[in-house]
């Protein structure tokens, strides 16, 4: 039990992730889907940040260039692991790019369909294909 409680931050990340995924799946509005996607991304970023954090650890920056001081500091001070944190800088950039691209798609969809609700867009697509095949039938009967 205590081991589960000790891992509460991971559970929080998974919970947040499920919230995000649920929003992506259940919401019809495309912007809300993007919000869900962002929440999922943030949950993964937090997972990595939690992973690199050491209890009582500080930022891994040397306070002095003196050799003996450096050795002493390396022995006494606890550092957090910087690598997962640094990796997340890249992941944040990726997330920003994804969001920008997704939002630009939504803008274009709204421009050409007049709506950003997924079901309405799909209905419009369906109506398009029905109209298309009706036009074709008309052409065919004209030709024969």
């Amino acid at each position, binding site marked *: 039990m205590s081991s589960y409680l000790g891992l509460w931050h991971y559970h929080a990340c998974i919970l947040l992730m499920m919230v995000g995924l649920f929003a992506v799946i259940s919401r019809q509005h495309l912007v809300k889907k993007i919000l869900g996607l962002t929440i999922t991304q943030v949950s993964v970023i937090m997972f*990595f940040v939690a992973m690199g954090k050491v209890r009582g650890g500080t930022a891994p920056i040397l306070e002095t260039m003196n050799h003996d001081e450096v050795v002493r500091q390396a022995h006494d001070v606890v550092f957090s692991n910087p690598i997962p944190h640094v990796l997340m800088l890249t992941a944040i950039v990726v997330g920003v790019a994804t969001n920008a691209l997704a939002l630009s798609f939504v803008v274009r969809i709204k421009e050409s369909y007049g709506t950003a609700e997924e079901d309405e867009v799909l209905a419009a697509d369906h109506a398009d294909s029905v109209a298309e095949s009706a036009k074709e039938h008309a052409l065919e009967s004209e030709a024969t």
Partner: protein
Amino acid sequence: MFGSLSMWSDWASSLTTLSEHFPVLVVVVPMLSAPLCFLSRNGRAARGISFFALLSCLLMVIHLLGRVLDEGVVSYRLGGWPPPLGIEYRYDQINAFVALIVAFIATVVVPFGQNKKAFRVPAGRTNVIYAVYLLCTAGLLGMCVTGDLFNVYVFLEISSLSAYTLVAIGAERRAMMSAFSYLTMGTIGGLFFLIGIGMLYQMTGTLNIVDLSMRLYDVSSVRTLSVAFATLFVGVSIKLAVFPLHQWLPNAYTYAPPKVSAFLAATATKVAFYVMLRIIFTIFGRERSFEQMNLDRILLPLSIAAMFMGSIAAIYQTNIKRLLAFSSIAQIGYMTLGISLDSLTGLVGGIVHLFNHALMKGGLFLAVACILFRLGSVKIEDMRGIGRRMPWTMGAVVVLGLGLVGVPGTVGFVSKWYLVLGALEREMYTVAFLTLLSSLLAVIYVWRLVEVAWFSDPKPGIRMADVREAPLTMVVPVWALAAATIYFGIFTEHSAGVARLAAAQLFGGTP
């Protein structure tokens, strides 16, 4: 005379110095050419830049594959930092082979004549397409060659983001919605992959793939390992479009410009397949994946389901691009079948099918681009009698379609031969039988195309008089790929030979 001689030797020596940096230049050249294309403000110039960038890339990859086959693994340290701390670019048989396929297809697609109507881009800004295209290629090549797991994720996102953009510039407005759902699925896949990387890092403290695989030997915590395996596997499966996770693929390939469909169908899923091989065989190892995780019990039914569902769905399509997209899902099923057989011969079949399917689907989608260019439609109904009007294009469709079926003398036969042989080796007779049965389904959908194109009268209401053979710039690349499917179907030592070496290396046995 001596002056020119010394100039030559200078040039040669500088080329030798340069060749030490080929491993990284393969990724850097297309990546840095992308902004050049963007700045050129001219579609023609951008096309020239991207063609030469990709051609030089292709030559470098050929050189590197030669070096790998002669000397073994080629490792390059980025910025001189030694692995596992620094990022390493690592070429071995398998990824040099996949990089060759990507560079080859990317180079063939660029000079392909383009149909302006297929792209929703303002006139005079077609250079942007090439910039995004080069970024996508750089991302895919990077995924192949890097030896660092987080680097794989970054390149995965570079290639995916540019792939979404390429899909979205399709002419129909539906392209944007399909790009949006591709983006949603792809991002979730990427995030799952990222979580898996995090867990592996947590257990081992390293991101270098080779180092990771060695350190994982000592890891005993099975639960974290299984979760990491599952998330990585699901993440890559979404990118690869393994059967139940394939929902993004049909729409994306249908509404993307045909040139883009050709490129993505031939490269993006192949690189994802390569990453899956890496995860299963290099990082986790064959024993762990198959004996601890029971991968074959999951992947085998899914592969067979993909083979049947993809082929059956393809039979009922009215749009040729959609037909080819569903056929792609079935063909991906053959590739994953090669993994799930858990035998060396089966794996050779999977890897060689990666190469073969890239040739066939790339060629078929390019042929569709020719049809769209002249006919203005991709409906199978409208293609009636087109064979007599465009004999070369439709002839290539017949050859490539026979390859999809797996007729002897084409590449499709080679891969199915290895797959069936692998199934027989493992005494899975039902699987061998089902593989052959699903090939019969491919006969049906390929025959539909052949019948419509060659043995039907033109549809009333379509003016066939305007339809003639596509220009040479379009027909030549199509036939180059069609000829390759026959060449590699007969002389298998270059495709199946390399695939065998790669499979043996992954399997950890002697060839």
